[in-house]
Structures are given as structure tokens and as C-alpha cells.
């Protein structure tokens, strides 16, 4: 099956000017196993030029393994990897010149300054942007002569980003760029990625933050257990939940009510019969409904619960997010992992 899918791919690097036609990244039937853990389990993916693409999933979903295979750091057990129409085995040194990489947990030497670190990374690339420009882009002007050891978490992450940018890459990989940052530093980094996106760079990032993927990515692939379980724009994925709104509530029973209601047991069928209610699930006593017509459905939900002799102890609604997509697809919360 893989063979027929890949048969149309150019075997040699495409002519210049043809670049935008070639997907920036192409993965076919990718597999990687560590000991007895299947990290990547038959993955197919295409990322187009100029796209900001997000790999989303809980820890251990295989995001990092996938991105490290793309970066040429890990060899896949099986499958095909093409970046910018090139193969790692045939054109590794050319690819290294053309991609920018930011890894999880890289600690740059504490005793070097920001500028020295960037000068070092710049020296590896034949072509690239001036070190000064990378400092400006990462908004580290005031820190250029500071030692890396004195930087905050957000500044270190922006330095890592600047190191990925000095080679003026055609394809930029960011592996969990905001993990461990406080909300302000995270927003700061989002602005930076936004600016890179506006400049037309192709970006592939992994994250386990839903709001990050929604905010930054043109398209998102949701990964779980080494597979892509959903793929599309954030809007498409959210629409796939079947409703734009999520209603969450918890109940406690009336003493005077029927025995079932006294134990707080909700008749889900009654709720599902309400127009606009698409689905129902219970997680640790908290009921979740996906609802399309919030304004008409909510009064009926109240009525149905009261009719069952139930008393609401909690009630809230929010717009559906990628988190809800993940929950809908897997029955698990992303951050439970």
C-alpha cells in the first residue's frame, strides 16, 4: 500500500521554483519501536510549504519520536521520510543546512553569553541571517551580553528559538516550545511564532497545550498511541465534536424523589432526546454534554433534570476546544497522562 502511495513522489530533488509544489514534509507508513513500546505506529502525514502544523497529543503519544525522525535524529524502523523533497539518507548534510531545530530540554552552556551561543550556531550554516537579526527577532537585545545561566526560562526558550533561526531555515521544527513556561512567557513565545508564521516560514511544532495549537496552527494532527487519530484545521476538528458548546454539570439527589434520583442517577436517554444535545458522557461524577443550540437546549436540560427529581450542584458551559475533540476521540483527558 505504501508503495502505490509513494510511487508518484519525485525520486530526485525537484527543480528550483518547483519548491512550493513539493510538500515540506512527507511521512509515509512511519514506524518506530523502542524495546517493546511502539512509539510511532504507521504514521502518514503531509505538511505544505508555508504552513504552521501542530502535532498535538498527551505525553507519550509519540510526538517527540515523530519529530526527531523528521529532524534526522532518530532512524525509523520502517516507512518513508521526505523533507523539502529530500531524503535523509541521500542528502543529510544539505537538509541540516535547510532546516532549523529546537529540541526539548536543550541546555546551552551557562557560561557563554547569548551572542556567543548564537555566533557559534550561526557558524555552522553556509547561509543564514546575521546574529544581530536573530537576537532582534527573539527580542533578546538587552540580554545579548548576559550569560545563558542568568536567563529566565522564557528567555532561554527564545534563545533556543534564535539558534533554530540563524540558518534562515526553510522548515522549522519546534518541540514543545512552551512547556514549563509561565503564561506570560508562553504568550511572548506565541507572538514570536506568529511573527515567523507571518513571514511565511513552514513550522512544525509539537505541543500538549490545546490553546497553543488553536492559537498558532493552521492545521493540527491529534496523536495518540503513535497514531494520528484526527487531522484538520482547529475549526474543522472542533466542528467534528458535532457541536460548538460543551455543557458540564454535576447533580445531587432530592430526598423526597424516586430511589434512582436519590442516588443522583441521571437518565441519559432523556437528555439525549433534547434537540441540540449531541452526546453525553460522565467522568468522575461530572456529566458532559455536547450541545449545538445552547440557548434552546439549556432550559430543556434544566427541565429534564428537575423532572427527574435531581438537584444541580454544578453547572457551566464553554465553547468546544481541541481538548474536547481529544476527549471525544479517546474518552480520556489530555492532561491525565
Amino acid at each position, binding site marked *: 500500500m505504501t508503495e502505490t502511495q509513494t510511487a508518484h513522489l519525485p525520486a530526485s530533488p525537484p527543480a528550483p521554483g518547483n519548491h512550493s509544489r513539493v510538500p515540506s514534509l512527507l511521512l509515509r507508513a512511519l514506524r518506530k519501536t523502542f524495546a517493546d513500546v511502539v512509539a510511532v505506529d504507521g504514521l502518514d502525514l503531509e505538511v505544505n510549504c508555508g504552513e504552521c502544523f501542530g502535532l498535538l497529543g498527551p505525553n507519550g503519544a509519540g510526538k517527540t519520536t515523530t519529530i526527531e525522525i523528521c529532524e534526522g535524529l532518530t532512524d525509523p524502523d520502517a516507512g518513508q521520510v521526505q523533507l523539502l523533497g529530500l531524503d535523509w539518507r541521500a542528502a543529510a548534510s544539505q537538509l541540516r543546512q535547510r532546516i532549523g531545530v529546537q529540541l526539548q530540554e536543550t541546555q546551552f552552556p551557562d557560561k557563554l553569553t547569548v551572542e556567543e551561543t548564537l555566533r*557559534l550556531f550561526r557558524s*555552522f550554516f553556509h547561509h543564514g541571517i546575521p546574529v544581530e537579526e536573530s537576537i532582534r527577532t527573539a527580542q533578546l537585545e538587552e540580554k545579548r551580553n548576559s550569560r545563558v545561566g542568568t536567563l529566565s526560562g522564557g528567555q532561554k526558550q527564545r534563545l533556543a528559538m534564535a539558534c533554530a533561526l540563524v540558518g534562515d531555515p526553510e522548515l522549522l521544527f519546534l518541540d514543545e516550545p512552551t512547556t514549563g513556561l509561565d503564561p506570560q512567557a508562553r504568550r511572548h513565545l506565541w507572538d514570536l511564532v506568529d511573527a515567523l508564521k507571518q513571514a511565511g516560514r513552514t513550522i512544525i511544532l509539537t505541543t500538549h497545550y490545546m490553546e497553543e495549537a488553536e492559537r498558532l496552527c493552521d492545521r493540527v494532527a491529534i496523536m495518540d498511541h503513535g497514531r494520528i487519530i484526527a487531522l484538520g484545521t482547529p475549526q474543522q476538528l472542533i466542528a467534528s465534536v458535532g457541536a460548538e458548546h460543551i455543557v458540564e454539570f454535576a447533580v445531587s439527589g432530592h430526598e423526597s424523589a424516586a430511589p434512582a434520583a436519590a442516588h443522583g442517577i441521571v437518565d441519559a436517554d432523556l437528555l439525549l432526546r433534547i434537540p441540540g444535545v449531541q452526546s453525553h458522557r460522565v467522568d468522575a461524577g461530572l456529566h458532559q454534554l455536547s450541545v449545538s443550540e445552547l440557548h434552546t437546549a439549556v432550559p430543556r436540560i434544566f427541565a429534564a433534570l428537575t423532572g427527574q427529581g435531581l438537584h444541580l450542584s454544578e453547572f457551566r458551559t464553554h465553547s468546544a476546544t481541541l481538548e474536547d475533540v481529544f476527549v471525544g476521540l479517546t474518552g480520556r483527558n489530555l492532561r491525565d497522562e
Partner: protein
Amino acid sequence: MNKLRLSSLYQLTVIRFFLIVREPEAIFWIFVFPILLAVGLGIAFRNRPADVLPVGATTTQLTQALAADKGLSATTLDEAAGTHALATGNILLLAIQNPHGVTYQFDDTNPDARIARMLVDRDIQAAAGQREAIPARNQFVHETGSRYIDFVVPGLLGMNLMGSAMWGLGFAIVEARQKKLLKRLVASPMPRWQYLLSFILSRLAMLVIEVVAFLGFARLVFAVPFRGPLVQLAFLCVLTSLCFSALGLLVASRARTMEAASGLMNLVMLPMWILSGVFFSASRFPAAIQPLVRALPLTAAIDAMRGNMLQGMSLGQLATPVAILAAWLVLAFAVSLRIFRWR
């Protein structure tokens, strides 16, 4: 200059150098510690004038016969007091006048006492009129090069080159691996051979400073001799440093944590600290383990440096230790390149 600054090998080397000099502890261990050690040992083992041996005699005539000898200090004691002084170690020998001649009381297992016996007997015989059958005369030789400090300086130099090369290379690489920096560098287009070469180049630059500072100090303060060609000594230092850099690389080639690396380093270096003759001659070890002792790179390095500095031997005469060092260099380097883990 600008082109040079853009070259990745230059950047890697300069940054290595920065990282070394910005680490105050490293500066202490590389530059200050060996000098302190040399000063301490130089003071502890400085050559003192020959000891004056205390002796006793039972008559004033005997004491007078001994008084002229600078190697002896003689006191007149009666026999009971003399025996007591002998037993308590206050004198080494008691000369007792008796009707038939003189009796010497001393412990013949004590070398100093045996020397005292010879000196005392010579003086007493001379006072009694004995003449030397053959005229003899003394000429004293206090030559530099035969002192302990002369012996220990090449040893300390070798030990220091071993430590700085192994720690310098091994620790920095394992730290980079542990902090995922190595992985990040490999993800960039950095040529991998340049990364390793930058360590060697910065090591050689440090080597110049380190060796000149240490040997300069030894020369100025202790007047340690340099009898062999200095160029050849420099070659030996470079070869030694490269050899231990290769061993450091080998130790660092797979270790994932600093703790593992420290353990391995000590495992490699400890036998050499003990066996390689830094502080005393390696030939004191039993013949059975001599082949092992001789095969150690630090033994070879120190032998070659002592040969050059103290005996003025040329490289041709030092072919064996040089070959041992070269063999370790090639072997360790080849193996570590083969098994090196970049992530």
C-alpha cells in the same frame, strides 16, 4: 579575521577556551594545584646537611679525640649514665675506655649507629697515632638533578597533563551529552569532526600555558634542570596530552551522566597515580607486575620526561616510552570514534 570568525572550527575552539577559563575551579586544578604540590614537596624533601651523630665516651681523652670531627657530637658520660643514654636513644654509641683498649656499645641494626662506630673508631685510632696507608682526600658533589624535587617535577608534570586532558575532554563531553547539547549540535549542520578537533585544539592552547607556567616555576624556584632538548620536551608534552585526551574521549564516548563519567575517570587514573612513579620510582614494584607498570601511558610519559629533563636523553633513546604513548593514543582514539554516542 572576519572570515576566521565565521568558521565553525574557530568558533568551536574559542568557545571551548572560554568555557575553560570561565570555570574558576578548573583554573585552580590546572594551574595552581600542581605548583602548590611542587612547593609542598620541595619544602618537605629539601636536602639537608648531613646529620650530626650524638655519641658518648667514658673518658675526657676519648671525648677530645672525637671533638674535632664535624660529623659527631661527643659528650663525656660515666658508664651507667652512658648505657642509660644509649638505651633511651640520646646517643647512638658509647665508647668505653678499659685497660685493654676501647669497647664500642651500639645497635648494629641501626645504620646511623654503624656510621658512628666507623667515625668514632677512625678518630680514636688517629688520636692514638695511626696513619693512613694511602693519602685520601674528599671532594663534595651537591649536584642539581639528583634531588627529590628534580625527580618529582617530571612526575607532577605527567600527572597534571593526564588530569587536565582527561577531565577537560571527558567531563565537557559528558556534560554536553547530559544537557542534551550534544544532541542539539548534531541536529545542526556542525561537522562532527570539528567538534572533536576543537577539544584537541583548545587543549593544546591550554597546554602551552599550563606547561610553561609549571616548568617555569620549577626552573625559577627550584632550579630544576632541563638537560634534554626543549623542543623534544615540548613534543613529549604534546604527545602525552594527546594520548590522555584520547583516553578522556574514550571514557566519555558512552557515559550518559557525570557520575558515571567520574567513576570511569577515577577507575582509569587511580592505578596510574599509584603505579606510574609520580612520587617514587616505578621500579620499586615487584618484577611480576613490571610489564603492566611499564605499559601504562603515565609511566611511559613520566619516564620519557625524566629521561629528557634529568638525563638529557634524545627522542631516539626514548623510543620505547614514545611508542607506548603513541600506541595508546591511536588505540583509544580509534575505539572511541567507533563507539562514540552523539546523543
